[in-house]
């Protein structure tokens, strides 16, 4: 059983049912930086690897955009749960879960806190796959924790406005975090540079990467 199966074990048990919601509003400096780079006079292709949230759809509707919503963490969990045999290697799995035409190029990729839940090999494979659909100037938004413990499943990030996010945690269950350091991310994010980096009081480190 590979490390992706751990995703399935946790996600499949409690992803649908929220026994206890914990909500908090946090300032997002990287989101503000991202919005500053978006204009209203051109169309953007935005890849959201988080779940579909009405607030976020509403927010991005102010920009001319095509929003691709993948709910990636849940998709992995479902795929692993339904696999009859051993889980396929990450490269193959991501090709299946994120199938795009070769000429697709995203302007923005919203990873939210996904990095905190993917072991190094899986994250490396994901980034390699996503890079195929990036172009010069593609922005990648990510929140990386500095805590040793993280919520058992990814946080729901609702965009309140250009500078604020609502963090919704489905339950108080915790798990150990993977704790990527900046030097780890530098190695993983080949082809990207850090455009903005903010350490928040919540313990999250916000990154806005730009593809060069």
């Amino acid at each position, binding site marked *: 059983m590979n490390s992706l199966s751990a995703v399935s074990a946790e996600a499949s048990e409690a992803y649908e049912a929220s026994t206890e919601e914990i909500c908090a509003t946090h300032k997002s400096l990287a989101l503000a930086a991202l919005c500053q780079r978006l204009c209203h006079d051109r*169309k953007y292709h935005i890849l959201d690897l988080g*779940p*579909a*949230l*009405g607030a976020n*759809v*509403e927010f991005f*509707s102010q920009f*001319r*955009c*095509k*929003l*691709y*919503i*993948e*709910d990636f963490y849940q*998709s992995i969990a479902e795929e692993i749960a339904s696999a009859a045999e051993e889980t396929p290697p990450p490269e193959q799995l991501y090709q299946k879960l994120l*199938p*795009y*035409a070769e000429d*697709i190029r995203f302007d923005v990729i919203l990873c939210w806190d996904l990095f905190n839940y993917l072991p190094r090999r899986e994250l490396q494979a994901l980034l390699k796959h996503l890079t195929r659909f990036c172009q010069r100037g593609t922005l990648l938004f990510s929140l990386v924790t500095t805590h040793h413990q993280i919520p058992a499943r990814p946080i729901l990030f609702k965009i309140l406005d250009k500078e604020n996010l609502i963090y919704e945690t489905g339950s108080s269950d915790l798990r150990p975090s993977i704790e990527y350091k900046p030097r780890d991310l530098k190695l993983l994010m080949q082809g990207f540079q850090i455009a903005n980096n903010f350490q928040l009081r919540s313990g999250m480190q916000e990154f806005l990467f730009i593809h060069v």
Partner: protein
Amino acid sequence: MWKKAEPDHPERADAASPAHTPVTTREQCATIGSSITIRGDLSGEEDLLIQGRVEGKIDLKQHKVTIGKDGHIKADIYAKAIVIEGEVNGNLFSDEQLIIRKSGRVRGNIVSPRVTLEDGAKFKGSIDMDQKPAEHQRTSNEMPGQAKPAASSIDQIKGLGVRS
């Protein structure tokens, strides 16, 4: 001496009046009941509520399509407005507004100037709020996305009045 009988439903009598503007409520639109399964192309000239199963294509461009909580759809839907409370696997094209209610489950691509997702709604696919559905129809075959347009059979149903 002889008095014309009062109509049983005064509002129906009013409906004949040119001044009356019928308000289409959920109860007044055509309905496909939960026990009904349709394979083929649906088209019509009135609003439609689907509680059953439809595979194929649903084309009510000038009207509203509601997929009820019991509805299971494997089809592309073209309508003026679309409301999803059930399950849809297909592409959705709306001229005005598309709403996915909290009970709704959608896999497919959406083209609509306005899209609303209630908390709890499930969606996977793309949302294009910048392209008119009429334009997009011509390019729908080129769209990437998880749901491919459902195949349609040779059957064609017009003038809906199907009730369970």
